[in-house]
């Protein structure tokens, strides 16, 4: 019996070690790919800004297209890099006592241009005297920016998005992002926060992204011992909620 247990532990350790090697390898590859894509993006930026001479209108349009897809590639790589770090359990949060409203404002300012493009108004409902939260500010800004990004992506032109904060019984704060967009059918919800999940495979990836954003959000929130979930119905919009621990007064 003991020998069998020892054997299983050994086998288990070996699998863990292999998994770690795989994640390390992935992180190295993504890092290299990021370097290549940096050369592309900064190279194109130099061309577009006329650093080495001027181009015709058509040439600039081509450069613009290459620049844009290069930018999307960088974005995807960044997400993959983030995920591989989570897998390798290398992500450490830098938790500090913060005010949630300031973080909401920061992430809103990151998304303002996108919202303006679709004439979308984002309304903020934050009660006064909120307890502070113990969080990693960069992580939470990333979660909020991802949720706003999705809400904008799936909302119609000229619609409204509501972000609100509520104090929960269990010494947590609940942050909700509500849109009036297309909504999600019940069967689409369970896998929504897992990697590479997309509800409608027929839609072009370029429009929707690869579905890594919510998986990253889930991992960040889990590292905060919080929860993230969605309430949604097709045609009636979605509410994405997450909780984070409040700091004891």
């Amino acid at each position, binding site marked *: 019996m003991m020998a069998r247990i020892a054997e299983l532990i050994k086998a288990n350790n070996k699998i863990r070690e292999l998994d770690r090697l795989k994640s390390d390898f992935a992180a190295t590859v993504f*890092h290299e790919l*990021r*370097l290549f*894509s*940096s*050369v*592309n*993006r*900064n*190279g194109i*930026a*130099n061309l577009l*800004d006329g*650093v*080495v001479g001027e181009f015709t209108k058509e040439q600039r349009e081509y450069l613009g297209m290459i620049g844009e897809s290069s930018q999307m590639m*960088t974005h995807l790589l*960044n997400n993959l*890099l983030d995920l591989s*770090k989570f897998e390798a359990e*290398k992500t*450490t949060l*830098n938790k500090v006592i913060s005010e949630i409203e300031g973080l909401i404002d920061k992430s809103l300012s990151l998304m303002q241009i996108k919202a303006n493009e679709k004439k979308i108004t984002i309304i903020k409902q934050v009660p006064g005297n909120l307890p502070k939260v113990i969080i990693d500010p*960069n992580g939470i800004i990333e979660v909020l920016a991802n949720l706003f990004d999705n809400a904008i992506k799936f909302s119609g032109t000229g619609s409204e998005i509501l972000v609100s904060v509520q104090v929960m019984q269990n010494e947590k704060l609940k942050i909700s992002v509500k849109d009036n967009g297309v909504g999600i059918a019940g069967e689409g919800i369970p896998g929504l926060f897992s990697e590479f999940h997309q509800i409608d495979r027929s839609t072009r990836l370029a429009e929707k992204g690869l579905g890594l954003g919510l998986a990253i959000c889930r991992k960040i929130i889990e590292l905060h011992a919080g929860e993230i979930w969605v309430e949604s119905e097709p045609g009636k919009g979605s509410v994405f909620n997450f909780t984070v621990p409040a700091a004891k007064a």
Partner: protein
Amino acid sequence: MTKKILVIEDDPKMLRIIKDRLEANNYQIITAVDGEAGLNKARSEKPDLILLDILLPKLNGFTICRLLKFDETLMSIPIIMLTAKTSENDLEIGKKVGADAYLVKPFDPAILLLIIEQFIAKSVTAPFRPPIPF
């Protein structure tokens, strides 16, 4: 007077891109493609500012930064770390070794120029306050 910037970067393509961009903005650029050469050029040329990659052959960027910041004759030269690495850990180390600012590749050229301008306009007495905090 034209200000002199030392760019220490081992990727020749990225080096060229940075050099062309900064020269187009009237800076004089000197370059090094490994850590040792970079440190030597910092000492011999006394540039007005240093752009420093982290992963470099021979001596890494953190070591160079620390050596320069401990050298009384060179410590006032602003150092901008420029790297593809993004982990919090790197930011922390960057702070500890005394880098003045930290930019992630691919960088926004406008922001790079702005930071350089702010540092150089102050024309230097230590200690420095970075214009973009870590």
